[in-house]
């Protein structure tokens, strides 16, 4: 019931905001803030309440679920369920949601009702994606998060917004359709095998598929998730969409939408097609490494701050892809950590970019410089998140990247060595950000105000989370553990976890 409630809160909040926006411009933001905070609190209470269960229950698949018939004739049910992994991502979703509302507080002044409607519906879509246990429902939520995002970029974006919005939409929509084809393929294969036509994830997991077909079906899923993640040849929508979107849009894109790609791989690609996934593991890891290096190279050369950060996302998501296909517990835990920490660190960088843009009215880094003098707080926070982006130990990103590399090292030596070079490149571009924006001689004339109280709250929340994740990541790791262990068992059915744990010769 709680799960359905979460989505209802967001969708209803969105509709109310839309209506309230008709007669008062500031009502919608309060409604958005209240509904996202309410969802966040519910989840947090649940997490704390279930603390023991979360960490122990490796025999029981789901922590909580909710099922209702929807379209029976096609075997579609409204089935929501979460395990530790989904729980983490849901908490992240609502956390990002609150921040997104807060950082659009002053930025959005036109059509606020429709804006917050879109924002909340994206969140609802993302939350639905993280909970849906029915492939049709999953696809439904997958689309629900696209269309409001399209509006968000297309209406409230900056100069080149229409181009960016179309590009985003076409990339994700086209790949989404491939996934839908794959879902239908799976549906019919399962129906033919068993006589039961159903979209239920649990039922479909065990489907016996001829390996040749399985590869193609998996590719359908993979392309959708790879475009979302994004994996290197499919990444070009990202810088445009990120660059042109309003701050909250970039935040949600980087923090949540990209994560749905990673989540999809973990939740669908591997469990549905374990054999096929194993066959493409090495090419996938190579693509991941290509993403790490290529993204970093591109990031270095950008002059537009938001595009730069977008390319760093490409680089960081390369780690995720590599980690997923390394297929061991260390790397998968690293992937979970990377999902969470990247949302926080890159989200923070986007918010910073938005704040700088609000003050200087530009995203061009050549026009910035020496901002530290006037805005020491912004400089300090910027430094913290630049360091998070280059993976400084003590901040969450380090744990993630270290675990991924450590796990990938077990899977493939040379790929990991090349991936490790990403650490050097990330240092190069992160320091360039700091140098170009905060250091150097002061360029902008006139007085620029430092952080306001609202901005301090946003940044403090992000900073505390990234440091917490860097020094005490165990709660996250423990929460994700049952899900990760199940994945590993799925991939190595013959070896139990105990032997996997000891690497000693």
């Amino acid at each position: 019931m709680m799960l359905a409630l979460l989505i209802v809160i967001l969708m209803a909040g969105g509709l109310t905001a839309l209506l309230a926006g008709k007669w008062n411009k500031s009502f919608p933001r309060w409604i958005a803030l209240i509904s996202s905070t309410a969802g966040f609190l519910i989840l947090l209470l649940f997490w704390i309440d279930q603390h023991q269960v979360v960490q122990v229950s490796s025999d029981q698949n789901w922590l909580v679920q909710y099922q209702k018939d929807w379209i029976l004739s096609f075997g579609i049910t409204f089935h929501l369920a979460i395990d530790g992994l989904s729980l983490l991502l849901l908490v992240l979703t609502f956390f990002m949601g609150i921040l997104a509302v807060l950082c659009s507080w002053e930025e959005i002044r036109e059509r606020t009702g429709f804006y917050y409607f879109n924002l909340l519906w994206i969140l609802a879509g993302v939350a639905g994606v993280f909970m849906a246990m029915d492939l049709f429902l999953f696809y439904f939520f997958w689309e629900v998060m696209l269309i409001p995002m399209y509006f968000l970029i297309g209406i409230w974006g900056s100069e080149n917004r229409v181009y960016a919005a179309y590009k985003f939409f076409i990339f994700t929509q086209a790949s989404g359709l491939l996934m839908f084809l794959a879902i239908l393929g799976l549906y019919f294969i399962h129906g033919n095998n068993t006589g039961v036509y159903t979209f239920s994830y649990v039922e479909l997991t065990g489907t016996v598929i001829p390996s040749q077909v399985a590869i193609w079906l998996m590719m359908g899923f993979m392309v959708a998730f790879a475009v979302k993640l994004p994996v290197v040849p499919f990444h070009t929508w990202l810088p445009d969409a990120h660059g042109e979107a309003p701050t909250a849009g970039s935040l949600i894109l980087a923090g949540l939408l990209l994560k749905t790609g990673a989540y999809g791989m973990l939740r669908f690609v591997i469990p549905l097609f374990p054999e096929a996934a194993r066959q493409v593991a090495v090419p996938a890891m190579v693509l991941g490494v290509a993403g790490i290096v290529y993204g970093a190279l591109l990031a270095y050369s950008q002059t537009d701050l938001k595009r730069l950060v977008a390319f760093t996302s490409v680089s960081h998501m390369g780690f995720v892809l590599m980690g997923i296909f390394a297929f061991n517990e260390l790397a998968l835990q690293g992937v979970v950590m990377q999902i969470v920490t990247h949302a926080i660190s890159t989200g923070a960088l986007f918010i910073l970019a938005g704040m700088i843009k609000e003050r200087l009215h530009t995203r061009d880094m050549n026009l910035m410089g020496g901002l530290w003098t006037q805005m020491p707080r912004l400089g300090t926070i910027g430094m913290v998140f630049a360091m998070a982006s280059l993976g400084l130990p003590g901040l969450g990103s380090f744990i993630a990247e270290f675990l991924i590399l450590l796990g990938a090292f077990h899977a493939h030596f040379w790929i990991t060595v090349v991936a490790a070079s990403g650490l050097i490149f990330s240092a190069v571009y992160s320091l360039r950000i700091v140098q170009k924006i905060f250091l150097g001689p002061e360029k902008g004339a006139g007085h620029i105000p430092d952080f306001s109280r609202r901005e301090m709250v946003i940044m403090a929340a992000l900073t505390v989370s990234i440091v917490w994740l860097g020094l005490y990541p165990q709660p996250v790791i423990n929460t994700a553990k049952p899900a990760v262990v199940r994945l590993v068992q799925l991939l190595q059915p013959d070896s139990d976890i105990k032997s996997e744990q000891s690497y000693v010769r």
Partner: protein
Amino acid sequence: MDNPLWLIPALPLAGFLILAFGGSHLSKKMIAAAGAGSVCLSALITIMIGTKLLSAGPDGGTYSQTLWTWIDVAGFNAKITLTLDALSLVFVFVITFIGALIHIYSAGFMEGDKDYSRFFACMNLFVFSMLVLVLADNLLLMYLGWEGVGLCSYLLIGFWYENPANGYAARKAFTITRIGDTAMAIGLFMVFYQSGTLVVADITAKAPELWQQNETVVTVIALLLLAGGVGKSAQLPLQTWLPDAMAGPSPVSALIHAATMVTAGVYLIARMHVIFELSVVAQSVVAIIGAATLLIAGFTALTQYDIKRVLAYSTMSQIGYMFLALGVGAWTAAVFHFMVHAFFKALLFLAAGAIIESLHHEHNMFRMGGLKDKMPVVFWTFLIGAASLAAVPLISSGFYSKDQILWYAWGAGGGSPLLWAVALLGALITAAYTTRMMILTFWGESKTHIGHHPGKRMTIPLIVLAFFSLVAGFIELPHNFGHFTLFSDLMHKVLPETILRTNVSSEWMFQLLAALATFGGIFLGYFYYGQQPQRIENLRQNEMLAGLRRFWFSGWGFDQLYDVILVKPFVFITRINKADVVDKLYTGIVSVTHALYRLLSRTQSGSLRWYIMGMVIGAIVILGIQMML
């Protein structure tokens, strides 16, 4: 928490937090109190714990304290655990004690700077990170400190951020050390998969069973760890960042780039000595890197104008000695030289900082001169430091440590006459450039007006450091006079004893030669710069020597080389690919579609007759086909 060990790093951390969050609301006095006070307290606690450890320590000679579990995933377990043994005690002592002195000095030195609190915040963070590095019980936690000091080094080199050159130097330092760190990270992965743990004590215990002597794996691991050390300690081939790092304030150079951070490589190798002992190849690589660096850096130091750059190159050269010692297996000698070097090099940097500040930020030695009488305190303390650096026999502490290394370079298990000869040549050059520096700075006629004299907060640390530079050597005396081995006895709890090849009784020969080298160097410096400055001018006239001088001056061309083979291509590739070549694929699809659209939209003329004509022609064609069939 019955053991106050955690307080040692926690105090500087607290100082950092106070300054970082409340720095803008505090007065300068309070900032200095928080910044310097926290490190001083930490130094006191160190002395307290150290005394307890030495007098009534536990059986293993190790204090250990687990604070919390950091990461625990699938057999990979890293805890936040602090460990204090003899080796880390020496490092902790140097860090907190010299750190405290430098903080006190900085309170005076940075008085006029607007970013007073930022400076102390960074310095405190540095001390914290460095303490974590040396106190860490596992390699991952050590890596945290390792990267943390890199960050602080970056922040402090670029402290005066308005000047882009400083920012460039800072980025260079961070990036180059990051290359080494990445190699080291790969080394950590290998260690983990080989041994199943990253806890240093466990690795030390397991290593002899895990690996055979000279196994390839162990050599690779050792070399990867060495790469980390080489990056941090500015040894060949990752040494080019250190001279540029002198862009930071002088106390920073003294603390980070002379006394502590740059010796982290020495610490790492000493800590992991078990692995290095298992690989002869790796160990000789360490020795060769040390020898090459000490020579190259020494020659470069001979030609520099900037007093801080001379000191920077001499630091590289002295760390080269430490690496040489580590490489030949003289572990204790390396750590001993580290400690002595920390004292006199910090002293030299602080004194140089005092001079520079008094002379309106003049760095060029050729525009100094005649400071002997005008700044007596600085002169005498600098002289003591310089004597230690040049290793003047008997009276300076530098002699005792360096002499030990020279002797081991020949006599220890991994030593050879060639290494010894290089080290001896290095000693001669060291003495020569030290003399040159002294003469140019303090003798001759005054060339720049002195702005103001350093205050008490600056001179007292100088005097204290000078005192230690004199006496630190006496805790470890050679076999042939005194045979006082307090330091090595302490170290041998952790580090293995040095294995000797040759007879002990011939040691006096080496000492004599070392002393001769020192005096020879001093004479050379005096001959060319002191007695008749004309002589150096004559040398400069020579074409070939001038070319050689330029080559040395540029640091043997390493900067230019890296610029051509690494930096330029990287920048070039990123520049040409700024618009992302992959995107061309998609814009290509778009333009093909658009071209087709243009083509077809021609047919939409809007003329009804044209459309009907089309329909008729279509009908004709269809019927025609029908007829064909």
